């Protein structure tokens, strides 16, 4: 079974530039998550989708971050404009809908460096 795919794996940009990350979840997984993992910290949830609807975006900095999942499959996370403190690994995860104990499967992440 293919896992969660993310691209690019690495990205270096200058502050005030824009950047976008892409995630392809495991086939059939209705729930999709984006996490931010700053160096030395645990992942922090940014946004959760159920199909193409947003379930929780309470910790998403909406003045600069946006995310979409238009067809309920792939998702894109965008930062515009980027700040130095956005340097982090951005993780995508997916899980089957229903069954509260269903496991979240994580992708390898995109490492963003903002100079």
């Amino acid at each position, binding site marked *: 079974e293919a*896992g*969660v795919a993310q691209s690019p794996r690495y990205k270096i940009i200058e502050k005030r530039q824009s950047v976008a990350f892409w995630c392809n979840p495991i086939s059939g997984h209705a*729930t999709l998550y984006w996490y931010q993992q700053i160096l*030395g*910290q*645990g*992942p*922090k*949830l940014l946004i*959760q989708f159920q199909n193409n609807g947003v*379930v*929780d975006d309470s910790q998403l900095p909406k003045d600069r971050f946006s995310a979409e999942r238009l067809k309920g499959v792939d998702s894109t996370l965008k930062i515009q404009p980027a700040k130095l403190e956005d340097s982090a690994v951005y*993780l995508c*995860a997916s*899980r089957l809908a229903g069954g*509260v*104990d269903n*496991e*979240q*499967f*994580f*992708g*390898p*992440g995109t490492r963003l460096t903002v100079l």
Partner: protein
Amino acid sequence: AQSVTQLDSHVSVSEGTPVLLRCNYSSSYSPSLFWYVQHPNKGLQLLLKYTSAATLVKGINGFEAEFKKSETSFHLTKPSAHMSDAAEYFCVVRPIQGAQKLVFGQGTRLTINP
């Protein structure tokens, strides 16, 4: 708010010796708790989970954890460390009963000495 505290940021053990990674949780009800492992340049992988069934939970790769309500702890152990166990380990709580949101601890880096 529900949270977890990992008591050690770095643990170093010799190959073949026991591993203990400590985690305390804060919750107003009986929580669901998890341990995830993150190898360099790889995705997070679920090691084991506690969801109010047996208090001693066995996971993959010989790891296990014991839920102790009286001590609000969920420590991760392994009898004998292997070089391949070197990684970052995260204790995780699901803060809202029945919800899907996970809250991660700060992580413990495990180093295995030959």
